[in-house]
Structures are given as C-alpha cells and as structure tokens.
C-alpha cells in the first residue's frame, strides 16, 4: 500500500511523458516563434535560438495581425456573452418549466448540434444578405454578421439545461415563497448555482466562435473585418511567408484561448465533471 521509491519514479516518468505529449508541441511552437533562426518545414526548436521578438513585430506591423486580433476578440467577447445569455434563458425554460412542446423544441435544438456548419453555409449566406424581418436592415458585411449566426448554439443550451435540471426544486420554491418573480428566480437563484456550467459553456463557446472560419468567409467581404483564422489560412497559402512568422501568428491565435481557459478552468473542470456524470 505504501508507495516505494521505484513506484514514485515510474509515476514521475508517466507524468513527464503526458506533459511532453500534450504540452510539448506548444512549447516547441513558442520557442520557435521567439527564435531568430529560420526553421525548415517540420522543425521545431526546443529552446529559443537567438531569442527575438522580430517575428511578432513583423506579424504585428506587416501582417497587421492586430487588426484581426481585435476583430476576433471583439466578435468573441460579444458573441460569447450573447450566446451564453440566450442559452441560459432557454435552458431555464427547458429545464424548469413543463409546457406543451418542450420535447419538440428540445429535439429541434438538439438536432442542430449534429449539423455540420458547412452544410448550411449557402442558405446562410443568402439569409445574411436578406434584410432582417421587422428591422429591415441587412447585417451582411458587419460585425453583426460575424456574431449573430453563432448566438444560438445547441451545445451550451443542453449543457446548461442538464445543470439547471439538477438545481433542487426546493430552492426555486423557497425563492417563490420569498416573493421572487421569474426573472429574479432565474438571476438570483438558478444562475449563481450553475456557474460551473457557465464556465464550461463560456470556454467552449469562446473556442467555437474563435475558431470560425466559414462564417467570416460568407459573412463579410471587407478585409478589415477578417478574423484571425481567416488570416491564418490566407497566410498558409502565402508562399512567401517565413515559417517563423507563420508560427508567430499561430501563437497569437492560440494565446487568447489558453488565457481564457486558464482563467475559467476551475469553474470549467467542475462543470465538465458534474455535467458528465449525469450524462
């Protein structure tokens, strides 16, 4: 039962292996992006060679990564907030209300989860060109076009629904007896209790919006509205770009995701875990 030294050593080796396999490549990319040495395709540096910020400076000034970074950040910030809010509201109804049609709505929303985005891109393009009903404006070629189509996301609706189902009924009843109305119950009782799930949906929502390639492609024409993934792709077909610069842009594209993950990871792990057990 007691762990012996060789056992400890073996454990340490396994941990190291896991870290190398799952984090090593990221380290390599980072080290390479900061190296002056030009790398050949298929090479990564383990340690920065002649450390330099040049590639980032180039990415910043020449590639103008900052424009796209700003776009990406703006879109992802607004998009994630909207997405999470809308999902939470819907999840509240689906999790805690009995009403006719609930099963149908759930199924309809769930089915969109199975749908590859590519499949609807043409019709979506047409719709983006149409004027919005009632409002009479078209959102094509604007930030709105990069955000609004992503607001409805089945995954977050469902994760939050599962969580909200688990909130004890007594709490809701207590609030009702205390005189809370529906909005107050939602905001003051349910939402604080599903914080872990909100953390999870925020991270995944963030990643999902951040990762969008297809939507910018069909939603905007204006280069100044491009986001990081679009630029990443067009840099990849750019045959003149130096490998290190490309890797530097890759790093720029990765850092926000990792930062958001690290910020929310406590909530996130709890959310993922408890959500998962219920399955």
């Amino acid at each position, binding site marked *: 039962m007691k762990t012996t030294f060789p056992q400890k050593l073996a*454990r340490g080796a396994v*941990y190291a292996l*896991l*870290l190398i396999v*799952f984090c090593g*490549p990221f380290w*390599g*990319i980072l080290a390479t992006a900061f190296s002056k040495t030009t790398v*050949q*395709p*298929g*090479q*990564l540096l383990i340690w920065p060679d002649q450390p330099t910020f040049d590639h980032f400076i180039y990415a910043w000034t020449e590639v103008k990564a900052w424009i796209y970074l700003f776009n990406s950040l703006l879109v992802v910030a607004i998009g994630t907030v909207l997405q999470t809010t809308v999902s939470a*509201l*819907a999840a*509240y*109804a*689906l999790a805690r*209300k009995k*009403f006719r049609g609930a099963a149908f*709505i759930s199924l*309809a*929303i*769930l089915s*969109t989860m*199975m*749908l*590859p985005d*590519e*499949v*609807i891109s043409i*019709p*979506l393009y047409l*719709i983006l060109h149409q004027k*919005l*009903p009632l409002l009479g404006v078209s959102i094509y070629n604007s930030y709105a076009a990069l955000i*609004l189509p992503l607001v*409805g996301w089945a995954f977050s609706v469902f994760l939050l629904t599962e969580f909200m189902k688990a909130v004890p009924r007594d709490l809701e009843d207590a609030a009702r007896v205390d005189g809370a*109305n*529906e909005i107050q119950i*939602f905001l003051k009782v349910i939402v604080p209790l599903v914080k872990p799930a909100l953390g999870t949906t925020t*991270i995944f929502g963030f990643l999902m919006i951040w*990762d969008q390639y297809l939507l910018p492609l069909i939603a905007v024409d204006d280069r100044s509205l491009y986001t990081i*993934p679009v630029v*990443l792709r067009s840099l*990849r077909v750019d045959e003149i770009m130096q490998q290190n610069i490309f890797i530097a842009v890759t790093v720029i*594209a*990765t850092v926000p*995701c*990792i930062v958001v*993950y690290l910020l929310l*990871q406590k909530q996130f*792990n709890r959310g*993922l*875990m*408890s959500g*998962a*057990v*219920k*399955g």
Partner: protein
Amino acid sequence: MSIEPKRWRWTIPWLFLAPALIFFTWFKFVPILKGLIMSFYQVKFIGADRWVGLANFERALTDSALGAAALNTLIYVFSTTIAGGLLAFAVALILEGQALHIRIIRTAIFFPAVTSVAVLAEVWRILFYPAQTGVVNSILGLFGADPQGFMSDPNQALFVVILLQVWKNIPYSMVIFIAGLAGINRELYDAADVDGASPLRKLWHVTIPGLVPAFSVVIMLSFIRGFRVFTEIYTTTGGGPAGSTEVIMTSIFKTGFERLDYGYAAAVSFMLFTFTVGLTVAHVAIKNRFSRT
C-alpha cells in the same frame, strides 16, 4: 403578471425561450430547410434552379468515391472512439485525485482541447513532417527507426489524422472519466478487497461498471465529432494522399465548394445529418432503457 398569474403563466417558458428561438429559427432552422429544398435541385448560380427530384440522392447512393469516403469515415469514427476512449481511460486512472501536482498536470494537458483546430492542424503538420528532420521522425530515429512518410504515405495518413483527433480528445474524455471515477462508491473497492479481488478484478468488476455512464457520454461525443469531422482533415491532408483520408465531409466540401455542385452536396449532407440524428436518438433511447430497468 401578478394580476392574473394563472392565465398568463403559460407564456413564461416561451418568453424565456424567445431569444433562442429567434436566433435558432433565423440562422439555423430556415437555412436547414432551404438546404433541404436545395437538395432536390441542380443549383444554378444565375437564374432558376433546376428541379431534379431525388436524382441527387440516387447519385449519392451509387457514388463509389463517396462510398470510399464513407468507409474511411467509419474507420475514422471507430478508431478514434476506441483508441481515444481507452487511452483517455488510462490517463484518467493515472491522473485521478486531488493532489496539487495532479491537478496542475490535468490543467496542462488540456491545452490541445482548447486550441483552434487550425492551429492543431499546423502543429500536426510540423510534428509529422515526413523528412528525417521532422519532429516525430527525429524521435523515431533515436530508436533506430527509418523516417516514416506519415501523412504522405497513403498507408499511414489515415492513422496519423486519427492520432490527431485522439490527441485532441483524450484530455476532454479524461475529465469525463475522472468525474465518473469520483462518482464510484469507495466502499465498493473495499468490498472487493474483502472479497479478495485482485487489482485487475477490481478494475473489471468495480471501476468499469461504475464508468458505464461516462463511457456512454464519451462514445456519443466521439461519434458525433467523428462523423462530422472536417477541418482536422481538410487542413492536414486535404483528403489525400490518393484519397486515403477522404471522409464524407471533405468529399461533400469538394463537390459542393470546389466543384460548385451545391444540390448534390446538400443531398449528401442531409443523408449524413439524418444518420447522425438517428444515431443520437438511438443512443438516448438505449440509455433510457438501461437506466429505467
């Protein structure tokens, strides 16, 4: 609301659902319907589309290239599910617990799961660069192996893109397994100890049965991801070499977006869509039956 609460109460769920329904309807349901309609047409770019009835569907069923892609997709789905599931399970067993260093490692190895696919694909192309100087080849070289072709070798390419998906999914599945492990009654292990079970027996009779719900989630997620896999493959091998990594979605993308045959692409998409929805419904049904009895 407070004047005649009973009469208006039915509106409450709908008010909460309204924003979501608006967004889903306009940006999902309507496009889906439009897409479905398209699949019955030969889509023209200028002027009216031509009604072709079920011709697109018929073509899909007899398209041998699509058949090959479907086979690759199946191989992809099952390999990523089995390999990813088992490896994640093993990692979960190793990284279970609340000790600080274990939590730090868990956090760290989650990076691949929270990184853009575009970036991951880049990482993969670099790691598995087929030259002798490529990262993985250099490591293999340390063990005396010859440089491998990886994604350039039609016999290995599918395996390498499968490995990418496995790599990316292990951390995610691992967290689900760890949650499942935490839910297993500790006393069951004690009971097994008292009953004289060996560690392997405990794994088989206590741990694995206790993880059935976790396995179910992991398998389902892996299936959904597997059948609609696109970016991971398109950005690494583009379906090649020699079509060895062509999957349904890359095939759809090529007909639809490179050859601009939208009607056909829409038809194949909807067949895939119907299939995955059916799969999910079946999974839910099976799960319900299991948990009811």
